[in-house]
């Protein structure tokens, strides 16, 4: 079991396991593009969502958090997917207390924020799964929490449920500075992507752009080598 967990970590957290790999470099490119995507307004809280489940939100956000932390930013990764949380699996931490316990005032910040082996990277797992996640995220308590977190971290990344399935991501998009849409190559349908875009565009946060996940190499063999060629 433990072995399997490690295997999983290996494939998902490529930016730790193999920080020189081309895929890690793709995450660093994503980081750079995010930093350049909003010049006039500081981005401190970003949500990542996708139209449907299983399109790579959690993997993307985990690796993105790592590359931001590797750059020296103090990063907090929040598992705001209160319906099907995964971050505690990805980083192999315990999820007995987390975001929901904070929101219901059953815990304090110090109790729930966990350190990771990666310097500057902190995690806030989802906590107990509540009956009405949307209401909890909509609450005034959540807004206050976000303000408090912004004060102590350089960047807060929120993992959210799929945007077409439930309102959670939309609610969080309204409370954060920026949003990113993850689509999976060959899996995300065009119609769903358009609807997700419309939802995110109507929210308060700035839609920073789209991340194309699971891209097949053969579609364009030049791009990755080009980026990789820059670092060496």
């Amino acid at each position, binding site marked *: 079991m433990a072995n399997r967990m490690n295997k999983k970590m290996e*494939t*998902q957290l*490529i930016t730790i396991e193999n920080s020189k*790999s*081309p*895929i890690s470099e*793709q*995450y660093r*490119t*994503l980081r750079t*593009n*995010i930093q350049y*995507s909003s010049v006039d307004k500081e981005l401190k809280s970003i949500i990542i969502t996708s139209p449907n489940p299983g399109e*790579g939100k959690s*993997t*993307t956000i985990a690796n993105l958090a790592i590359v931001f932390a590797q750059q020296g930013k103090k990063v907090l990764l929040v598992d705001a997917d209160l319906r099907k949380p995964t971050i505690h699996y990805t980083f192999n931490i315990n999820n007995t207390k987390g975001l929901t316990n904070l929101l219901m005032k059953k815990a304090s910040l110090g109790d729930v924020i966990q350190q990771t082996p990666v310097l500057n990277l902190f995690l806030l797992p989802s906590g107990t799964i509540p009956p009405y996640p949307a209401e909890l995220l909509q609450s005034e308590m959540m807004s206050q929490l976000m303000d408090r977190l912004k004060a102590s971290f350089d960047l807060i990344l929120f993992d959210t449920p799929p945007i077409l399935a439930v309102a959670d991501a939309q609610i969080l998009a309204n409370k954060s500075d920026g949003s*990113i*849409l993850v*689509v*999976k*190559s*060959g*899996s*995300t*349908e*065009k*119609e769903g*992507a*358009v609807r997700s*875009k419309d939802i995110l565009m109507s929210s308060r946060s700035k*839609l*920073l*752009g*789209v*991340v*194309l*996940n*699971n*891209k*097949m*190499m*053969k*579609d*364009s*063999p030049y*791009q*990755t*080598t080009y980026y*990789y*060629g820059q670092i*060496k």
Partner: protein
Amino acid sequence: MEETISLQEFFQTLRKRMLLIFSITLLVTALSGVISFYFITPIYESSTQLLINQEDTNTNQMPDLDIQTNLQLINTYSIIIKSPAILDLVIKELALENMTTQSLNKKINVNSEGDSQVVTITVQDADQYIARDIANSTADIFQREITDLMNINNVGILAKATASEKQEPVKPQPILNIAISMVIGFLLSIGLAFLLEYLDNTLTSEQDIEKLLSLPVIGSISSMEIKEQKKIARLNKMQQK
């Protein structure tokens, strides 16, 4: 959906579905090979030639008119050869119990070569010896019967039908079948590739996203499969050299 398709997109689609195209072509080709070699009964062909010549000594017709008459005769003969009057006798002589006049008729093909007075009787059968026997006895019986039927004796047998163990079957022609099915399989799979491409309503490239959503693509993450990763590593090595 756009109406036009650029040449670049055309080749992109082909490259994307290369495996599909290749495997369907191969499958269809192999299938036709197997069917032609193992499932289709080989058909042998044997033919005999008759010479039609009007032995007319008592009239003083022009020579080319003679030939004209002969050609008309040949057409008549072709029909007579395939008529039950002859074929029933062939069946009786060769004791072909399980064959009807119609089925025998289908095996026999009569044609004259060009404007000549030579008539060729071609017989096709799964057994080369039976084909030979049918051809020969049809010619014999026709020669014999025509004297009664038309009151003339002007049919000579030019060449007898032969058969041998080493004879090559005329049908099927495996190489031809394979070649044809290869072309058909190739075209079919290309058609299928484009159909799949047309039916595919998923996002697959940065261009798709930019065209459809008019949003910037801020990152593309390659597939994390081991195979893909190795490919990337290889490309990198090439780049560094």
